């Protein structure tokens, strides 16, 4: 008998908890009239979405089956050698940067930068709705990075042919483009010859012979970051104040580094500069 009583008591608490759950939402504080039951409203929506997506995948699979090329062979290198499309942005960066930068350091910076976004954006507005006017800076920076990423992929997929040369859609993709890489020159050589600087090293650190021109390239790179860090600090006090010291420095480091990528690309395309900084261990 007592067992039966406790059993029914349990049922009562369970059902009252349940009826509370029916009315309550995950957010907790939302009025019940602004909410709907997940079954059938959301579950059916998900079902429809799923069926449409599966149909699209099946259709694509039937009209465009997976390709299979010749058996892998270390003896024949395809030209060009292309990575899958989602990595072509990185492969395109290889034109402008050495592999340690294009393949390792830049992707690492991208991922660390992405991870840090929520911790670097102190703006409480624009949470849970689309807005540009309430968060212009973060929107512009993110869209710029995203645009750069897609632009590089687009070039890699549609404009790179034999020898990773540039091909327009109307070019003959079976004929090699005339080689243009030979005239590329390092920034320090340009500085050395145009300013008439001495070729003899100022100091020698092991393998590293530091010439005046080489020192100057360090100064230029340092100035790129230095100016980038200082200008907003001096002239956009409000921006600095909102972020605080740690966030400001992290934001500016990632922002300036990101801007450095298209800048190096332009310097390369417009002035035929191969490296802006050369050391025996790494080149940028």
């Amino acid at each position, binding site marked *: 008998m007592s067992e039966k009583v406790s059993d029914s008591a349990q049922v009562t608490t369970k059902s009252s908890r*349940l009826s509370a*759950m*029916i009315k*309550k*939402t*995950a*957010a*907790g504080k*939302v009025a*019940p009239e602004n*909410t*709907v*039951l*997940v*079954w*059938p409203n*959301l*579950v059916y929506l998900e079902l429809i*979405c*799923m069926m449409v*997506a599966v149909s699209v995948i*099946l259709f*694509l*699979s039937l009209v*465009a*089956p*997976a*390709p*299979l090329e010749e*058996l*892998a*062979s270390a003896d024949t290198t*395809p030209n060009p*050698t*292309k*990575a*899958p499309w*989602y*990595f072509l942005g*990185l492969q395109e960066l290889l034109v402008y940067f*050495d*592999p*340690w930068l294009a*393949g*390792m350091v830049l992707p690492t910076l991208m*991922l660390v930068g992405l*991870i840090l*976004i*929520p911790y670097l*954006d102190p*703006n*409480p*507005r*624009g*949470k*849970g709705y*689309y807005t540009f006017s309430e968060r212009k800076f973060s929107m512009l920076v993110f869209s710029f990075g*995203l645009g750069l990423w897609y632009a590089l992929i687009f070039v890699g997929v549609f404009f790179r042919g034999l020898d990773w040369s540039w091909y327009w859609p109307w070019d003959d993709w079976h004929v090699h483009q005339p080689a243009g890489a030979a005239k590329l020159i390092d920034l320090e050589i340009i500085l050395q010859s145009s300013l008439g600087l001495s070729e003899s090293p100022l100091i020698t650190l092991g393998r590293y012979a530091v010439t005046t021109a080489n020192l100057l390239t360090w100064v230029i790179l340092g100035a790129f970051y230095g100016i980038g860090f200082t200008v907003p600090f001096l002239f956009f006090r409000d921006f600095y104040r909102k972020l605080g010291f740690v966030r400001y420095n992290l934001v500016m480091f990632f922002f300036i580094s990101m801007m450095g990528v298209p800048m190096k690309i332009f310097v390369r395309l417009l002035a035929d500069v191969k490296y802006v900084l050369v050391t025996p*261990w*790494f080149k940028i």
Partner: protein
Amino acid sequence: MLSLLQKIREAVNKTQVFKSIFRHGYPDTDGNRALVMFSNIILHLHPVRVRRGALKIKFTWCLGGLTFLFFILLAITGVILMFYYVPDTRRAYNDIRDLETVIYFGSLFRAVHRWSAHAMVFSVWMHMTRVFMTGSYKPPREFNWVVGVILLVTTLVLSWTGYLLPWDQLALWAVTVGSKMAEATPFIGAAGPFGPELGFGPENDMAFALLGGTIVGQSALLRFYVLHCLALPLITALFIAVHFWRIRKDGFSGPL
């Protein structure tokens, strides 16, 4: 006709078998619609009620759910493909040829696997873009964005490791491009800055660890196979679980 179907359903709902599986009636009352969320392992990812705004397709574009769907499609077709594939450089290519030419629906399963993989990479990117644009990473959801970035990485590595398995020219050389980059890792790559200075050569560097050798050969194929079919799917599933759990715990950021 409808009433007949309804009668059949009501009769089925009363059977011991139905009750043993579902523990409650068909979800056509508010009570059962709530209970179904508690008692169904897949549906219990959902809350019982959502805000009306959460149903707006123009807010989420269903992108997170689509990514999960592609992951499930990949798991299903992947298991089927594994039945026919041996990660041996002498027969891997022929196994794929068999899938394409001999095995019933082999070509279709392979094509679905490939398209789902492309679609998953794309939908992950789109989903992250949407989450950024709606500011849904803002407190208290910062950590779930971090989990999302981890899932982005596992998705890309899964795609990349799968690229090698057909063992055709496309596979070999796409992975060779990637391993050249691993060789150039700073400090731990044979061709990277300060790598040689720290004692890393082709026989012990980052690329060697990745490929299990100095070239993309049998060890690399086995490593990529194990990573692709076992290690990475498990890691991804784990982080997906955390990702979903956190959505429930942190609440949904969408409009009313």
